[in-house]
């Protein structure tokens, strides 16, 4: 009996998939440790975890949208816009609390708008969020007028730069939202309904699930997480510019795809996305350590997204043929 079959009898399919990915993570760490002395240093590892944490925060919300067979292309622009708003609120009021509320609020508001575009106007998610991407892009640039806002109150900066027992706060946030995300998807009825919607929206609707309401929820959460990620990012960088979020879109999608979320919906987990974020960050970290020009990173991320989608399609076909 093959290994995979043996494993599948003891563990659920999801756990097995996660296991494979963790093996990849370990293998990559081993390979990088061999390839470069700089890898296994404390500062580098913390750095990797920080980056992965930030990426995970955005990608976790995005995962929920992908579970419903949708896509939120505006998450990065959402982060950018929210970050700019937070920055100016922080500068004008000096209150970290108001800043945080603005960030989450802005993120959720943008997310809800996406949700309404998809459910009320019946725009396909890809197109609706793509349009939203450009609208937000434009608004952020206009709002910032080419300038930068920097210098935030120290209380606020703790979110991104602070430490607790020697571990950076963002990493705690990562584990916190891993737990929340897991709980939401695995231990609430909303989670079950979201998986059902992704697996077969027609059957979900005909089984009495309020599909439209859940879709708005999912986009709102995705937006909210983008807002949260904006806070962390801002706190770390201590400055805000209009294009702050742009480079994060492809990596976020990549993290979800590597993590096993299928763009056709109904398949994927928050923990998978976490591991996906780790794997992607390790790849980029490795490129840095090996002195590869940073300009190659977007290209590599694009290739990874396509490779991940292709693998997803091939494995889907294979299991369908096996029927």
């Amino acid at each position: 009996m093959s290994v995979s079959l043996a494993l599948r009898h003891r563990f659920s399919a999801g756990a097995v998939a996660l296991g494979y990915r963790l093996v990849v993570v370990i293998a990559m760490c081993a390979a990088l440790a061999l390839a470069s002395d700089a890898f296994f240093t404390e500062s580098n590892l913390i750095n990797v975890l920080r980056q992965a944490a930030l990426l995970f925060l955005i990608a976790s919300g995005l995962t929920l949208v992908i579970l419903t067979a949708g896509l939120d292309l505006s998450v990065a622009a959402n982060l950018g816009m929210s970050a700019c708003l937070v920055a100016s609120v922080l500068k004008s009021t000096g209150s970290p609390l108001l800043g945080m509320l603005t960030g989450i609020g802005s993120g959720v508001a943008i997310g809800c708008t996406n949700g309404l575009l998809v459910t009320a106007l019946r725009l396909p998610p890809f197109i609706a969020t793509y349009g939203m991407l450009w609208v937000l892009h434009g608004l952020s640039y206009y709002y910032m007028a080419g300038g930068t806002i920097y210098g935030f109150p120290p209380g606020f900066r703790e979110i991104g730069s602070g430490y607790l027992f020697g571990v950076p706060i963002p990493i705690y946030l990562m584990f916190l939202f891993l737990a929340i995300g897991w709980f939401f998807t695995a231990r609430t009825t909303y989670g079950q309904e979201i998986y059902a919607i992704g697996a077969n929206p027609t059957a979900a609707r005909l089984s009495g699930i309020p599909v439209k309401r859940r879709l708005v929820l999912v986009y709102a959460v995705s937006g909210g997480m983008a807002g949260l990620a904006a806070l962390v990012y801002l706190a770390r960088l201590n400055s805000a510019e209009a294009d702050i979020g742009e480079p994060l879109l492809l990596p976020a999608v990549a993290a979800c795809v590597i993590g096993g979320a299928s763009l056709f919906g109904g398949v994927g987990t928050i923990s998978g996305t976490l591991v996906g974020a780790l794997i992607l960050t390790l790849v980029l970290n490795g490129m840095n350590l090996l002195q590869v020009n940073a300009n190659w990173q977007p290209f590599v991320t694009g290739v990874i997204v396509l490779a991940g989608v292709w693998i997803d399609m091939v494995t889907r076909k294979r299991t369908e043929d096996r029927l």
Partner: protein
Amino acid sequence: MSEMPTLAVQPRRLRAALAATPGVAYILLLLVVAFGMTSKDFLSGANLLNIGMQSAILLMLALPMTFVIMSEGLDISLGALLTLCSVVLALMLVRGNGLPVALAAAVAVGLAFGLANGLLVSVVNVPPFVATLGTMGMAQGLALAVTDGQSVVGISEYVQPIYEGGIFGVPIPLAFALGSYALSHWLLYHTRFGSYVFAIGGNREALVLAGVRANLYHIGIYVFGGCMAGMAALLLTARTNSGHPTAAIGMEFDAIVAVAVGGTSFERGDGWLFGTVLGVFAVGVMRNGLNLLGVPSSLQVVSIGLLVIVALFVDGLKRRP
């Protein structure tokens, strides 16, 4: 069809004629009138020529985008691809290759990415949005990587003549635009390829049942886009006088808006090529007009973004009888 009393026919006929006139004509008219009134420089000959020249590049992207959208797909990599081709063109020139060789290289790059898009969408069956999202990232990344983030300059001597010279007195950008339109028009309405574009969007099974290798033509649609991006790279490089790694990022958005506003439907295999031309003018007019009014380009994007949402909404309404 019931007969109607002659007197009652008149208002009916007028209304029918109004309804039959494509929406984009109204939009264009509205925009021209609006900007003409608010800005005195708008309707000057020099300005209108300016709009024409600038729209040429967008037109060269919007025409193949029309084909893609008619086939129920979408190509969001065209902007990044155009950028990459422009960079390739500039790099080749800087290395001492003549203009023809450089242009050939640019087109080759465009063709390669177009082929990749086509294969992903029709053979591997990746949803077009996702496939072109991936290739967009790759193209964008490559452009950044090979230029190290810097513009490629020092090519003025090669590209200057493009913007200043002409073919039989026609400025080169306009010549390119006219040529592209002529080519696209011929392809869509006078070749099997064009008929099959309608079929892939309208009823792909009919094509397969007729024994046609639908995949081949489906790939061809994206290859067409890639090649046009390669050719348009010449105009872009000439205009910016350099190979800038982010020059045309996002231009595909304007192209999609132009196609949508022009009346091409996203889901029925229905398309109007001249509508795209009008749509391109509409976008060009909007940008130009807003410029003259001092509206920063960032906000221009917002209004164009809203335009596409409106256009898609209207398209959705048209589809649901």
